[in-house]
Structures are given as structure tokens and as C-alpha cells.
């Protein structure tokens, strides 16, 4: 048996049983899973966790399932890279990359949340899973759903990058490409979710789904030798990941797994879609929705459902929000690849570029320990880099032609 006691409205505190529901019937506040922390504290220790398999289910008592894990048994436990080259480039001492570019099976942190969502969908007895997606979630629901035998309906904005569409289609889901932006898709899906009895992972399964993001944070702490970092820079689309990373840190403190917690949480967005960081900079908790216009499509949510809570976390922890231009995002992707050999999608370019900006402006101290969350793989959004990378050296198939080029390269110091 699991340790979930029920669901509770974050706004008005009304309690609900464990069902595929997601908003408070009274005030429309989001529902959140309530755990029996006393019970968990008795069984979940550092030693217990360390003995388990290297996947996200090693923290299963803090995940909202009742029975055994059923989906994503190899998901999670991605590397935390100590990024000394990047640290040097940015002028800080200790920098880490939480590298979800290699998440199993679809190379983004969405593999975490979907593992939990589909396990829960099985527990609820659904035969069809669905999602509204900017790409990464589509891939993960398509793939995890294929292996675990669900019918799948995937709704995406029709304007998504071609490579992101292929990366869903290969798993043969029912892919519905909607003529509209992500917020239009989301809105349509919430109406569809009302009508059909499907497990919409980010709608009626959302309270459970979103908890999966905590594993990104649990791993950061475990991989830092059971310590919380001084700073963590988290990309924001809906704001859910940021709030859950912070929740994971707080849960570990609550359980006594870490003793101290003084982490500042920083929100990172693209300037072309920055409703959360704009509100933080303006000192308000009222989100003004925007019409997204950025290459960081995986973060292009103009109407972020968890934005309000993300702002609270940033303020509560003494962090701040920052946003970066499309060019800075591209430069961030290239910097990370050049220094650390990690090719991130545009969202990772956002967090790297935002970190640079926060260091340059003194908001991240040079002697502090900082973790940058990199949440998806760059092979998915190669279009963003067309014309932006170095060029190949074209030669004839003879040694003379090669050595001519080699001389040029050596003169350039490479």
C-alpha cells in the first residue's frame, strides 16, 4: 500500500478522495496529493533509498501510487554532472548540470511525470491516455503508453517543429495537430477531458502526474551527497516543475533526510514568453497571460497554471526570475555543448543563459553551489540551431586537400 491519504485543494483546503479529478469543485483551486509523512518517515531513509535500483521509483513512498510501479521502470536517475568547464566560463566555483537530456525513454524530464501518470492511470483502470503537449510530453506519453499498452490521443499545436512531430508519430499514437497555440490546445483538451473518460495526464491525472517532477529534485539532493544546493535554476513553462523541485527539497527536510535547506530557487523563461518572470520582476503575484513568441517552444505557455505558486516559491526562497532572448538561448545551448558536451533543447539554453545573466548581475554568488536544470535533449529541436553552428570543412578525397584545411584549422588554434 502507498502513503497517499487523499487530495486537497491548495486554495481552500477542501479534501477529496483519490480520484481522477484535478480542480476543487468549489473554488477551482488545484488539487494536491496529501501524504502520510509520519508513516513515510518510518520506512524511507537514506540507507533504504541507496539500496534500491537506480531509477525514479527509488523514492516511491513519496510518489502517489498505491501498488507497485507499472510504467517507466527505467526512468529517472539521470546524471548530475559537475560542470567545471562551464563554471570556469561563467566565472563561478561550483556548478552542476542536472542532465535530463538522457532521460529514458524519450530524452526529457517528461519521462518522469508520465511514468507516474500512467502507473496511476492503470490503477484507476483507464484504457486510454491523452495529453496536450508542446512536444516533450507528447513523446513521453506516446512511448511509455505504447510499451504499457494504452490507446493514446496526443494533442499538439500544429506549428510544432517537424522533428518533434516525427518523434511522436513513430510510436503510432493518434496524433491530433490543432490549428492554434499551446494554450488553445490546452483549452480544447480541458473541454475534451470533460466529455471522454480518458486519462489526460496533464488534466484529470495532473495531481498525480505533477508529483513525478519531484524526482528531479530528490535526485539532485541525493547526487550532491544528500545536500541541497545553494541555488537551483529551473525552467518555467506552467511553473509546475519549479514548484515540485522545491516541494521535493522540503519533503526531504521534513523527513529528516537533509538537515539544512537554504536553497534559493530561480525561475528561467524566454523573453518571448515570460509571464512568470515578468510578474516576479514587477513584484506582483498576478500573472498577465501572454501570446508566446520564442524559439523555446517547450516553454511557450502563455497562461501558466502554476505560475502563481512558482512566484511564491521564488519569493519564499529569496531567488528571483530572469528571462533571455532567443539569441541568448542559442548561445546558451552552444556554450553548454562546447564546455560540457551536453546538447540540450531550447529550454536548457534558457536555463544556462539565465544562469549566466544571474551570475553577471551578482544575483548568484560566485562562491555558491548552483544546479542548472537541463530538461530536454537538443536532438529534438535541431531546427533552432540551423545556421547558428560552426560549419563543416569541405574537402576533396585526397590528403593534400585535407592538409590544406588542417593548416587553416591549426592557424585558428583548434
Amino acid at each position: 500500500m502507498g502513503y497517499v491519504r487523499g487530495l486537497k485543494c491548495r486554495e481552500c483546503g477542501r479534501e477529496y478522495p483519490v480520484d481522477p479529478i484535478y480542480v476543487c469543485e468549489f473554488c477551482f483551486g488545484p488539487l494536491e496529493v496529501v501524504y502520510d509523512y509520519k508513516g513515510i518517515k518510518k520506512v524511507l531513509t537514506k540507507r533504504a533509498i541507496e539500496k534500491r535500483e537506480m531509477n525514479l521509483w527509488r523514492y516511491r513512498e513519496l510518489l502517489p501510487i498505491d501498488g507497485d510501479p507499472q510504467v517507466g521502470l527505467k526512468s529517472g536517475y539521470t546524471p548530475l554532472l559537475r560542470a567545471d568547464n562551464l563554471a570556469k566560463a561563467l566565472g563561478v566555483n561550483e556548478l552542476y548540470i542536472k542532465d535530463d537530456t538522457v532521460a529514458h525513454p524519450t530524452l526529457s524530464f517528461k519521462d518522469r511525470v508520465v511514468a507516474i501518470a500512467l502507473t496511476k492511470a492503470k490503477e484507476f483502470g483507464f484504457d486510454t491516455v491523452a495529453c496536450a503537449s508542446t512536444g516533450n510530453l507528447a513523446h513521453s506519453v506516446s512511448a511509455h503508453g505504447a510499451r504499457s499498452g494504452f490507446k493514446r490521443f496526443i494533442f499538439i499545436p500544429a506549428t510544432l517543429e517537424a522533428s518533434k512531430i516525427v518523434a511522436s508519430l513513430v510510436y503510432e499514437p493518434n496524433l491530433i495537430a490543432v490549428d492554434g497555440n499551446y494554450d488553445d490546445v490546452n483549452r480544447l483538451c480541458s473541454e475534451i477531458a470533460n466529455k471522454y473518460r480518458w486519462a489526460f495526464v496533464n488534466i484529470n491525472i495532473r495531481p498525480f502526474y505533477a508529483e513525478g517532477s519531484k524526482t528531479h529534485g530528490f535526485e539532485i539532493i541525493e547526487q550532491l551527497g544528500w545536500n541541497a544546493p545553494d541555488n537551483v535554476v529551473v525552467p518555467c513553462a506552467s511553473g509546475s516543475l519549479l514548484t515540485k523541485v522545491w516541494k521535493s527539497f522540503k519533503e526531504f527536510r521534513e523527513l529528516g533526510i537533509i538537515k539544512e535547506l537554504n536553497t534559493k530557487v530561480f525561475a528561467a523563461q524566454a523573453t518571448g514568453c515570460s509571464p512568470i518572470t515578468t510578474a516576479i520582476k514587477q513584484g506582483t503575484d498576478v500573472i498577465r497571460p501572454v501570446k508566446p513568441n520564442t524559439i523555446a517552444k517547450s516553454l511557450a505557455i502563455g497562461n501558466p497554471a502554476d505560475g502563481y505558486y512558482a512566484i511564491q516559491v521564488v519569493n519564499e526562497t529569496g531567488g528571483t526570475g530572469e528571462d533571455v532572448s532567443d539569441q541568448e538561448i542559442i548561445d546558451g545551448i552552444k556554450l553548454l555543448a562546447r564546455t560540457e558536451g551536453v546538447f540540450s533543447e531550447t529550454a536548457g539554453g534558457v536555463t544556462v543563459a539565465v544562469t549566466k545573466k544571474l551570475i553577471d548581475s551578482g544575483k548568484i554568488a560566485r562562491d555558491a553551489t548552483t544546479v542548472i536544470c537541463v530538461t530536454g535533449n537538443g536532438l529534438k529541436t535541431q531546427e533552432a540551431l540551423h545556421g547558428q553552428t560552426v560549419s563543416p570543412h569541405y574537402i576533396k578525397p585526397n590528403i593534400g586537400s585535407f592538409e590544406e584545411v588542417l593548416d587553416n584549422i591549426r592557424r585558428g588554434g583548434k
Partner: protein
Amino acid sequence: MAVKVRIPTPLQKLTNGKEEVDAAPGTIINLLTDLDQKYPGIGERISESGKVRRFVNIYLNDEDIRFLKNEETEVKDGDEVSIVPAIAGG
């Protein structure tokens, strides 16, 4: 003609299970008052002290009213209004 209002599942108990109901034209806030007269209790679920609740999104003909004039947005006969709870992203 009247204004068509699409009701989300959690509120359909108050509209006798109807997904779509009619309301009088006017500003959004007046429309909510009108709805509340027809379906008592629905008003306070959607708004509080004249403001739409934080986790409720209202759309006029597919446009978020926050891009228009918020609660003061004018709604005409034949328009379509959707009330949608905010949902998480992906």
C-alpha cells in the same frame, strides 16, 4: 438570441447537468450575475468580490478575457463564452 455559455464539469451539477446554457448580454461580470440568478450558487464559484477567481479562465469567442477588458469585457448576443479551469502544462 442570447449569449451561449459553456459550463465546465465541476459546475454542471448547478446547471442540472447542462454543458451549455444561455445568459444575457452585457459585461462578463453582469453575465455572471445573470447566471447566478438562473443557477443559484454558480456566481461565487466563478468569481469573488467582482473578480474572476485566480484559477478560472474565461474565454470570449476563443479569446482569453485577460487579453480584452477582463471582467468589464462586453459580451453581445450570439457570442460564445467558455469557463475553463486553469490546467497544467506539458
